[in-house]
């Protein structure tokens, strides 16, 4: 397992905690929005663990905070949200999925949001970027049909994360899902081999993992 995030410190701590629990985890500090990051991330990851079986595009940004109306959103903020949430996953998928197609197996998971589907006021930059990511996922799946490579979209639901706190500071945390439990459901989903490529899955609809 190779973890990618911008901040080396917390990333190394997370990798160390996975190793302490018996897992095999590596860390690459990088920003998926960087133009040159994808080839370097793909190269380092394959050097550390060999050809990749699964790519999870999980990194994302809310855009400007506090969340604001589109009329108050700077063009640069929309560009930044698209760079992180849409173009970054596109570049990484492009850098990794080719070798998956050649081997005839692999899975790409795009982590999305219900903001990709519902038009929530003040979620313009984030929602538009995630809606575009969803559609890109469907087109990836259509183009890769028959190659053995699946592209899935997962809506994790509202989770008790720092990003959610940034977006909705006064949320009732008792109503938010534990990200670890959501992650366990996604792992179980991938292990099951279902669903078909191109599907969009809501984590809340997946069975709870003990």
């Amino acid at each position: 397992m190779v973890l990618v995030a911008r901040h080396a410190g917390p990333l190394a701590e997370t990798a160390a905690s996975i190793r302490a629990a018996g897992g095999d985890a590596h860390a690459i500090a990088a920003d998926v929005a960087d133009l040159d990051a994808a080839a370097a991330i793909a190269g380092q990851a394959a050097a550390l663990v060999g050809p990749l079986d699964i790519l999870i595009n999980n990194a994302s940004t809310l855009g400007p905070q506090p969340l604001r109306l589109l009329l108050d959103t700077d063009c640069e903020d929309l560009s930044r949200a698209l760079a992180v949430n849409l173009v970054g996953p596109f570049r990484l998928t492009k850098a990794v999925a080719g070798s998956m197609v050649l081997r005839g197996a692999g899975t790409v998971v795009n982590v999305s949001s219900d903001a990709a589907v519902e038009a929530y006021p003040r979620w313009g930059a984030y929602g538009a970027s995630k809606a575009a990511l969803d559609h890109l996922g469907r087109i990836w799946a259509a183009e890769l049909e028959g190659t053995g490579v699946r592209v899935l979209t997962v809506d994790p639901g509202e989770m008790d994360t720092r990003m959610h706190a940034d977006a909705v500071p006064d949320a009732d945390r008792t109503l938010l899902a534990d990200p670890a439990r959501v992650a366990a459901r996604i792992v179980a989903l991938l292990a099951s081999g279902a669903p078909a490529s191109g599907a969009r899955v809501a984590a809340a609809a997946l069975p709870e993992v003990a």
Partner: protein
Amino acid sequence: MRPARTYPDRRDGVRLLVIDPRGAAGDDASDVSEARDDARLHDTTVAALPRLLRAGDLLVVNDAATLPASLPGHDAAGHPIEARLLGPPEGALFPAVLLGAGDWRQRTEDRPPPPALAAGAPLAFGDLGAVIVDVGPLSPRQVRLRFDRAGDALWSALYRQGRPVQYSHLAHPLPLWAVQTVFAARPFAVEMPSAGRPLSWEILLALRRRGVRWAALTHAAGLSATGDGAIDAALPLPERYDIPLATVAAVSETRRRGGRVVAVGTTVVRALEGAAAAHGGVLCAGAGVTALRIGPGHRPLIVDGVLSGTHDLPSSHAALLAAFTGPALLGRAVSRAEALAYTTHELGDAMLVLPGAQVAWINSIFCGDSQDAVNYQHVADALSQTAAAAVHPCPGAGRAQLGGAHV
């Protein structure tokens, strides 16, 4: 040929000179004239590949990603040096060659030599430290380096400090993404396996729809030049490769059924022919090192055709192609490529040596492209089903081979 100075507009838009060493049926075998050789050359583009291969053929590519193998740095006295990795790491040690001051605008052979450095000398590449562990037999500039960190921290530092090997004939430096093929996996090559660069997924998927199969191996494509006379005279140095069992199965099945094995690049030829030569002519799966030098007179055991970049004469790459064409036909091909203003080097045009290509070429012109895709898929499906059943363990050393190759 003049070097290509930048990327083509489209990866698969580069020109392709097709060389058919056998010629069309009815070709007079006793005719060894230049006119006959000229009739065996066809000028097209790489986008025509799906029409030139046929159902049952196998395309074998090198899936090595290209390392940021050029590390600019300093010795302990502050003299600028560049370390160019010679291959992937051997355990904790990185084989490398040292160059003196300069940058990508200078030809490698014009770069001053590095200061004389012995085993034990420390080097610094930005914040990444290294020490020369030992010095190679060819030249004091051929070294093995041990870096001051390992694992995640080392790979992060290599990708932060390193850049791809650069070329003075280009109009601009090359970023890392520009030296990757569309199927790059493990970073194993120190220069781009450039024969695979023109292959787009548009072409690869079109080939598969026609019933052409693909397979991959990983070969540590080495440096094209170091600027050190002794090392350059010995190129290509022994290079590492790794051939998956599935590729051995696909090769054997293809040959058994009369399909052609088409290697993408001289690195793939070296890996397949080297691996077979190392096991008495039987292609075995697994990792190895090959020092095989292939030239005119070498009789290929595994490979029928080669997709390659264009190569001037004389060169080790051209000598390898001559093993498939004979020297006379290759000479005519290089002359034709020059006359047609083909470009060369890593971003340049391409050549395909393929027995029987002339028939496909004529068919594609006179009969259109009306082959039955359903039949091709049928053949491909049958091939993949039988290939899985034919694999048996190889005797000894944890290797594996195809029983079918012996039966």
